[in-house]
């Protein structure tokens, strides 16, 4: 059934296009030059989207930001990415010191989502940030799950020296091209996050925290300062 339809659709499309003049080729804008971090401007975008922003001038300040987040939201369990920046900053140690139970990194896939749904906090790094829109870009990989930035009510996203700063939305395109692996495959999932989960479906009243996090906290870490 589907094979017949496949052929029928492709033939209909070819017939439909036969003799049509070629449309104008899209004129894409020239790529912007790499941006220097303008933290106040990024903070305005992120808070404008309903997120929180803090600048940490050292690893210790980043740990302090995590500790105060844990306290403010009375976090008891957390799920965090297995990521070099999180290890370098010593965030797991901060959680342990605050008495927060972190999901074991070797948890089986079968129980992972249910366990992540019980966590009060999810911690990820950012693979990239779009400065124009205050958008955080996270890539799914083994140990860096999709659910970490989705299921817990609070998402802490860290901008670190691994994070690429993209000036505008058009600059996402070459960045996406660079994410392809040796076989040309893109990652299985890339999520661009612009503010906490929200809706305006009841009388257009903005409500935060529908299916995703109610709170999005961004900490930019200047590790070398």
């Amino acid at each position, binding site marked *: 059934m589907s094979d017949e339809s496949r052929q029928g659709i492709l033939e209909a499309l070819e017939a439909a296009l036969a003799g049509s003049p070629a449309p104008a080729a*899209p004129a894409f*804008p020239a790529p912007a030059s790499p941006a220097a971090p303008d933290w106040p401007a990024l903070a305005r975008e992120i808070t404008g989207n309903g997120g929180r922003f803090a600048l940490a001038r050292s690893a210790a300040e980043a740990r302090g930001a995590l500790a105060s987040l844990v306290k403010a939201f009375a976090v008891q369990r957390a799920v965090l990415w297995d990521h070099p920046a999180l290890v370098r900053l010593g965030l797991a140690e901060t959680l342990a010191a605050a008495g927060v139970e972190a999901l074991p990194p070797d948890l089986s896939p079968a129980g992972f989502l249910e366990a992540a749904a019980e966590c009060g906090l999810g911690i990820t790094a950012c693979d990239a940030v779009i400065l124009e829109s205050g958008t955080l870009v996270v890539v799914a990989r083994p140990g860096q799950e999709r659910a970490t930035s*989705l299921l817990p009510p609070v998402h802490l996203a860290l901008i670190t020296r691994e994070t690429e700063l993209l000036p505008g939305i058009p600059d996402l395109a070459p960045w996406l091209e660079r994410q392809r692996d040796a076989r040309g495959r893109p990652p299985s999932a890339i999520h661009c996050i612009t503010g906490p989960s929200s*809706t305006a479906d*009841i009388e257009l009243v903005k409500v935060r925290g*529908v299916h995703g996090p109610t709170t999005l906290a961004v900490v930019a870490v200047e590790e070398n300062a």
Partner: protein
Amino acid sequence: MSKPSGFAARAARACADPQLQANLRAAALHFQGNQAKAFAAFPGGAAARDLARDVKDAALAELPSLLRRLEAQVAALGGTVHWAADAAEACAILVDIATEAEASTAVKGKSMVTEEIALNPALEAAGLEVYETDLAEYIIQLAGEPPSHIIAPAVHKNRRQVGELFHKRLGVEYTEDPTELTKIARTTLRRRFLRADLGITGANMVLADTGTLVLLESEGNIRMSTTAPRVHVAVVGIEKVLPGPAEASAVLRVLARSAIGMKMSTYTSFLAGPRRDHERDGARAFHLVLLDNGRSRILADPELRQVLRCLRCGACLNFCPVYEKAGGHAWDNPYCGPIGTCLAPLLGQGSGRDLPFACTGCGACAEVCPVRIDLPGVIAALRRKAAAEPGFGDPAQPGGPPLSAAAAGMFARLAGSPALFRGAATLARTLDPGLGLVSRLSPGLRAWTRTRKPPRLKTPFSTSWPALARQLKGEGGDA
């Protein structure tokens, strides 16, 4: 082409519902304000729209080769591509996928195309439990109603109606606080997500070069539907395919601004095939259903082809004066507003031949369209096509053109002779300035004025202009 749909009667009912009128007015102000603010703060907005238009036109011109490339790439990622000529075939494919996966429950991310193919009844008939998970879609599923707006499907309901619905259908204590109501939906649906076998979504774009879906949303229902269930099925119209990330970001630049007034939607997800080895979440199996359902017919008509550029942002609805009065249900189609007027008669079996005649031709929709679809031009073309059909203008057919042939002929005679027109207008102005008498006497005009307000015939502009011009120049005047 298609049958008339009774738009006028449904619009009249909507106009007589004060609560609905208030909801529609509030929604129009909200969405218009957001869109206007977003583009006012977007200096490159005009060029960005031109680019989005060119990107869509270029992709449509190479649709067959893009679809072949997409198919190969999805297969290389371990996904399966299905082709559906029409709605019935698409539904049958989904039922087969569900049966083969031994699925008993499905969660759906917000999608227009699954409304277009009426997927839910088909899946339910096959014994599946289907849950809409976008808050508005969930509300109208509980209420047993169709959507009334492309991006805000429950915009016709107010908080009291939602509160009563949740109280009645979910057994929760009555509340009309939107935050509390949202929490109730979050808790109820969280369980559904984690237990569902099948996640069903549409897609805003599909990228041929890498077999990637691009999905936009605010709530996270689409992320949940593609993260938790073991099987993900995306149903996508064939016109949604683009080459790659450059084209996608050109569309992203205008899409969220037009839909909700944000630079980017809360979540924009790029999904490529099932989860990879050692990943702990995401669907284990991925199916892509490519749907024609009339789209190849639209492509074949040079007058109509541009309709396929549509990104489903909903901006044309938000600025349409007819939508603001009639509401989305008057279209009796998942696609409403100006774009619904174009799509309803062309997709599937075609319905709503009368819809193009409800357009005032004001052109506001074309002004705000992010891909510059000439909606009034397409609607005029659809009127001409409808008028050329046998049986057109037959008063026995409900929802035909509002002007009888006799009235139209009379108007043509008047309009063809300036002297005669001026005479008739002067006479009417003197005797019947509200055209009340004329509309009672002329059946054609009566039909016309049922859904439209006739102009008040006062002093013509040509007569009052000299005085007005003096006034504008600050010389005073007596007009």
